[in-house]
């Protein structure tokens, strides 16, 4: 018996530090979640960090990657959703989902799990039509995530009796662009995985249409051009660029799923990844 117990203890100590499951912050839409983190907050060198199924790991800002793996030899086991922040309307780039700064890192993306860069924002049109926000909540004014929900419609409206087209019909991926007279607004990006694209924002009164928001992994479409005016681009789907405006000015770049910063790492993917992995 003593020998048996000794062996078990020996096995446990040779297996390295125990795996740590990331704890949730306050639920959003009844979904477990946490905003941007560093792995070193939870694990040390050689440790394993587990993201549970249906858990959303997200970022408040495109400046910050959602998960920074700053631990050597770390293993990240993702069973949920790790997503970068969507770029704001107007052509802002989307944020990265994972940022690897440690060496010897392993990323395991399990079946049914997602790693997705934020979508790029659609480029502004002329006159005054904002682009759509990228998937991942891209919007100049959006700060809190509406996890699990698609991009809402931006309002239509009229100005001094003349109709303009707002960025209607934003999809679960990127939001549609707008061809609005001021103060029109493009739709912000959605928080659904994988997420469908939206339809074009209709043009009124001779205005060209705003580009459609992209579905997951797909670029927002280009805005229309007509009569010397050009529509805004749609927001990019997860990991994809925002749409160009009708003049051809490109939208924001999509965020990476994994930024390796030149570090060699190991990837095992049985789930879905949107965006570049290097």
């Amino acid at each position, binding site marked *: 018996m003593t020998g048996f117990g000794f062996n078990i203890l020996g096995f446990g100590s040779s297996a390295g530090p125990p795996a740590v499951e990331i704890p949730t912050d306050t639920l959003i839409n009844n979904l477990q979640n946490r905003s941007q983190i560093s792995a070193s907050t939870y694990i040390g060198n050689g440790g394993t960090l587990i993201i549970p199924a249906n858990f959303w790991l997200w970022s408040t800002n495109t400046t910050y990657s959602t998960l920074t793996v700053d631990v050597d030899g770390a293993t990240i086991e993702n069973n949920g959703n790790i997503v970068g922040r969507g770029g704001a309307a107007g052509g802002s780039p989307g944020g990265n989902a994972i940022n690897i700064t440690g060496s010897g890192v*392993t990323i395991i993306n399990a079946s049914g799990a997602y790693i997705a860069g934020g979508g790029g924002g659609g480029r502004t049109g002329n006159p005054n039509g904002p682009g759509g926000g990228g998937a991942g909540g891209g919007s100049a004014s959006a700060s809190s995530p509406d996890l699990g929900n698609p991009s809402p419609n931006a309002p239509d409206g009229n100005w001094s009796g003349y109709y303009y087209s707002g960025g209607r019909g934003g999809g679960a991926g990127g939001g549609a662009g707008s061809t609005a007279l001021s103060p029109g607004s493009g739709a912000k990006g959605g928080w659904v995985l994988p997420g469908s694209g939206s339809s074009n924002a209709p043009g009124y009164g*001779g205005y060209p249409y705003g580009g459609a928001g992209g579905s997951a992994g797909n*670029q927002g479409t280009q805005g229309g051009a*007509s009569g010397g005016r050009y529509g805004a681009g749609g927001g990019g789907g997860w990991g994809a660029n925002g749409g160009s405006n009708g003049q051809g000015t490109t939208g924001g770049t999509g965020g990476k799923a994994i930024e390796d910063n030149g570090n060699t790492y*190991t990837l095992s993917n049985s789930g879905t990844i949107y965006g570049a992995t290097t």
Partner: protein
Amino acid sequence: MTKTTTYTWQGKVFDTEAKAQEEASSSVSKIQKDFSNTCSVIAVETDIKKYSAFIISQANRLTSHPKDLSDDDPRKFSFYCQGSDNHLPVSALKVKTLHREEFDNYINKKNIKKIQKSTFPTRLLTAKDEDETLKNGEEIVDEILFCKAEFIYG
């Protein structure tokens, strides 16, 4: 009502179709380069210590054109182009097929083969605020012209 006609290709506006066609023809190599920049092809190694895992290193990024890969190249690759799925691992032959498909998708999605001809009231060029919308009797006519430039893979 005075009218203006413009020809737009990839967001650039010209006053004649010939100028738009010339711009497209002179942009062929740039567009091929832009496409290549959206793609990442990296030779990967199997991580023998983990199940179905592959080691990714930017040092193994493919620097030659994927079309030049040998069909029986034994290496496995990570393949990704903007707008495509991530593929890991794939054979050299599959990389060649995927890369060609993504090039065709890129050309189609960017509307590169279209020139838009627009005829509209000249006053719209300088109109502001509510005058920017069309008045009774005014119209904008848009036509799509075929771009003659050939965007050949490779």
